[in-house]
């Protein structure tokens, strides 16, 4: 497990452009949303916490996005470098692959998100830590959901090969409108609200607004998000195993890089 993580640590450590790339996108995202929300604050009195809410949501959403993309990227790196078969003839259990990718994805995500979090305070006066101790549970929930999406996409890569790569990039964009990241659930039409409620994202971001706007921690939202995440994560692990079994049956493990 450690060896697989080490492979990616070497990869990151050995390339300054790769580290800069990890930091660049979250930072740009925070700066962009920071100025947009500052503009809204100056030109509307809808509520006074626009910058804080939008930026905090942007940081949390980016954390989710990076977790998922990092998991996918770790897997895609093996396909692109044609190292995939070498890994699968090594004595690695599927559970060890999942654990190693999950741990390494966290490292990759933190490299990207920490500078963005640190920038938000001096530039826009927003600290994500205003969310208090609940922040730990919110991050955990987002991370679980990010890894779940990563597992589902990599299951597709295992089963269908690199042709599934585009889904890796678009998976989160499909869910973002339903996640109610920047707006409350009530904005969605009734029928879409029903769909949105099966996503843990809705409960996470409703909770962020509840804490920042009303200073109220609603643990039922946090618990619902965690419960949903555990169900989805367990299902995604099961699907990953099925995809591995399917790939062995179909013979794609031996030529997935081609």
């Amino acid at each position, binding site marked *: 497990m*450690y*060896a*697989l993580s*080490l*492979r990616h640590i*070497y*990869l990151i450590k*050995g*390339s300054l452009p790769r580290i800069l790339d990890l930091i660049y996108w979250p930072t740009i995202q925070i700066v962009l949303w920071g100025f947009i929300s500052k503009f809204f604050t100056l030109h509307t009195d809808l509520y006074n916490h626009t910058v804080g809410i939008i930026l905090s949501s942007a940081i949390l959403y980016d954390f989710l996005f990076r977790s998922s993309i990092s998991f996918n990227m770790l897997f895609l*790196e093996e396909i692109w*470098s*044609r*190292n*995939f*078969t*070498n*890994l*699968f*003839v*090594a*004595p*690695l*259990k599927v559970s060890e692959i999942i654990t190693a990718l999950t741990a390494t994805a966290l490292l990759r995500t933190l490299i990207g998100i920490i500078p963005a979090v640190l920038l938000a305070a001096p530039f826009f006066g927003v600290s994500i830590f205003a969310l208090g101790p609940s922040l730990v549970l919110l991050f955990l929930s987002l991370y679980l959901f990010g890894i779940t999406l990563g597992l589902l996409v990599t299951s597709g890569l295992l089963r269908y090969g690199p042709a599934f790569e585009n889904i890796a990039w678009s998976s989160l964009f499909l869910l973002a409108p339903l996640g109610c990241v920047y707006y409350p659930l009530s904005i969605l039409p009734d029928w879409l609200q029903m769909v949105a409620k099966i996503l843990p994202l809705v409960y996470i971001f409703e909770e962020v607004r509840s804490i920042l706007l009303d200073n109220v921690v609603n643990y039922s939202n946090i618990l619902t998000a965690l419960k949903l995440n555990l169900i989805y994560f367990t299902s995604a692990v099961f699907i990953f195993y099925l995809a591995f*079994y399917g790939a*062995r*049956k*179909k*013979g794609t*493990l*031996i*030529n997935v*890089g*081609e």
Partner: protein
Amino acid sequence: MVAIEIKNLTKQFGNVWAVKNISFEINKGKIIGLLGPNGCGKTTTLGMMLGLIKPTSGSIIINHNNIENNRTGLLEKMNFISPYIELPKKLTVEENLKVYGKLYGVKNLKEKIYNLMEKLNLFEFRSRKTGELSSGQKNRVSLAKALINDPEILFLDEPTASLDPDVGDYIRGFIEDFASKKGSTILLASHNMNEVERLCHEVMMMKNGEIIDRGTSGDLINKHGRKNLEEVFLKIVRE
């Protein structure tokens, strides 16, 4: 003592029978060549023996264990090299060997890597990124990776493909030396008949998913009334 026992092994992809009911045994310490035209089922057979492909039916027993029941346990004692797969290009030679050494749980890894780099003339490239090396140098790194766990069973898929004669000869010599010292069992898939004649104790001929002949190079040459193994191969393929 039998190291590899294949019984009625079959693989079907949709309507295509890639491997048709093959059975064979390989004794411990033997080097066996697997010859056949492209698409005859060699890679599928190797893939099944490495646990990468699930057989449709039949069994693969390695060191008295069925690979379907103890895949990771057996893979610890096996390794594989193929020109169609590569090591991560952005990692240095030493980093790649460290990663794979740890993946295989190699003890005294530092010493092991040092010895392999020395024997395979890789020492001067140890800090170079693997992707920056020539194909001959990359091939030596892949061979070092394949030998990092002192495999009891080694699968070599065209180990000298696209190498110049000098490097190819060096690699063949190295494999010969490794096999005699470690007593490893080796299955070699190759299109280089001289390589097969030089290295292999026996040769299996594969065509259309079946093993159609087996014997020493000399036996096969005599049996088919040809001058060398290449002519035997051509005869079998064109029949």
